[in-house]
């Protein structure tokens, strides 16, 4: 389905505090994932200073504020800026989250779950189609989010909702395996049942990250190594899905780069030995 996309390998989410470490340890990753939002509202010289340093590295674009789940048309300025950025860095694909982050009353600034209903489904598909029309040459992926409270009265499960969006809007999946694990624990379902219920053939990229266990809730913190449960899920996925890229997200409490390097090496080991598409 996405067989013509490049096999990027194992990469890392670009974060400013890691800039020098990334340049000094170029051999440890194959690509970087840039957060669109950190660039599209930045002065040109700031963008270019970073991109100049990254010019020989394959880049993909990942957004956090498209808000495809908002029951309103997309923010056209944000969409156009995203498309221009995707074009500028020559990303082979770009992605954002299956959630809503804002309404016309408030910008939540966080990935908030949608109600899994037919009405939401129609709105999400309409918004994804608008993204695809705005950027027809570059595939768009949706990412599953972590969420801490479900909305009661849903008409379908999350897995059914994601599956229908992907198929009916014909887009790819950025599967965050840490999010699958966290949701399975917080919301009470089997992560492997979830994985077998979604179209794994649409997975293009996988996110991995660490999480924090707190009383009664696991929090998606991206600030520590992955747990065995998440490695196991990654292993399951790369053995079944045509994954083109696996990327680590580490957003705060940055450790010595050797810790991140170790995570990348583990991911590479799993990916290169198990992926059916290699």
């Amino acid at each position, binding site marked *: 389905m996405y067989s013509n996309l490049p096999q990027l390998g194992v990469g890392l989410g670009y974060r400013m505090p890691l800039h020098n470490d990334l340049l000094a340890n170029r051999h440890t990753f194959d690509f970087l994932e840039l957060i669109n*939002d950190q660039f599209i*509202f*930045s*002065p*040109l*010289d*700031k963008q270019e*200073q970073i991109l100049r340093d990254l010019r020989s590295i394959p880049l993909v674009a990942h957004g956090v*504020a498209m808000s495809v789940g*908002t*029951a*309103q048309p997309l923010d056209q*300025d944000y969409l156009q800026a995203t498309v221009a950025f995707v074009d500028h860095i020559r990303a082979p694909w770009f992605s954002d989250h299956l959630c*809503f982050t*804002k*309404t*016309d*009353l*408030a*910008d*939540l*600034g*966080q990935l*908030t779950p949608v*109600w899994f*209903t037919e*009405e*939401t489904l129609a*709105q999400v598909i309409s918004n994804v189609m608008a993204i695809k029309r705005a950027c027809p040459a570059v595939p768009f992926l949706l990412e599953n989010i972590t969420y*801490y*409270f479900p*909305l*009661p*009265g849903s008409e379908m499960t999350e897995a059914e909702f994601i599956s229908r969006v992907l198929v009916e809007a014909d887009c790819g999946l950025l599967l965050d395996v840490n999010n699958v694990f966290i949701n399975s624990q917080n919301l009470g379902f089997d992560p492997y049942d979830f994985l077998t219920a979604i179209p794994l053939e649409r997975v293009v990229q996988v996110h991995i990250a660490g999480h924090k266990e707190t009383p*009664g*809730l696991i*929090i998606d913190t991206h600030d520590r190594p992955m747990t065995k449960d998440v490695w196991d899920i990654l292993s399951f996925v790369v053995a079944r899905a045509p994954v083109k890229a696996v990327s680590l997200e580490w957003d*705060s409490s940055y450790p010595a780069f050797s810790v991140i390097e170790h995570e990348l090496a583990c991911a590479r080991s799993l990916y290169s030995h198990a992926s059916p598409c290699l």
Partner: protein
Amino acid sequence: MSLIEMQRALSVILTSPGVRHEYQRDPDFALRQFSLTERERTTLAALDSGRLQRYSAMLIAGRLELALKALPVTRLLLPADFTMKFGELYSRDYPPVILAGSAMLHEVHSIRQFITDLTQSQVLNDPYLCNVVRFEASVFHLTNDIEAFSAATRCHQELVTPVTDTTRPLLERHVLICTFDSDILAILNALRHGRRPEEHLLSSTTILLLRRNVDTPAVSIIRLNEASRELLQKCDGATDIRELSRLYSDRIVDVLDRFVQSHIIAMLAAEEALPTAALSTGI
């Protein structure tokens, strides 16, 4: 009524402490202000209240973290429980808004004002905090504001027009002039090296000109005296050389030329309109 109204209601419950507390006391009452269908109302009323509260706390912590990442020295001066203690107050006084630009820039401005308010009302007592947050927010603003970058570029490329009596000097948005009631640079230096600043640093006034550079996203810092500050504040794009010469002397043209050469001010010809959003803003 519609899905968007349900999302609006959820957004308000999550971001407005007042509505959230009302919701926790009596969900049906809190939801009355929204035009919801019975099914939507039932769904929102049945949300897990404890999880909702924790998620709201995460939203606030996320906003504060976004801002404080840009203000590293300010963060050193805040109490360790700042987010827990003041997060809800911040959320009430500075609710999230719909933005057309950088969320981080917006949060930095909001947190600077919030910390200033808390300090002035003596809720926070660190004597260095007000000046430090103002300095860091100003530098962050200049390096991250697209208008400041555009103004710096314009000022750098501006051909110096022959200065005549009708030429109007203009201090643009890539420059901020800030007066601090302390020796802010010495205070920052001490704090960055893990030292508590000496108290006498609080007794001197410092006027700084912060200028956004054009070749790198960085800021140059120049100490000013009171006379220079006054002169630069008259460079408003409306006052012309004739008026400035009358106020000072003919030699003012030479002084202004040095500011032009340092890319601090631009010179507008008589007929030239002000660039959009041109004027330097105090922060």
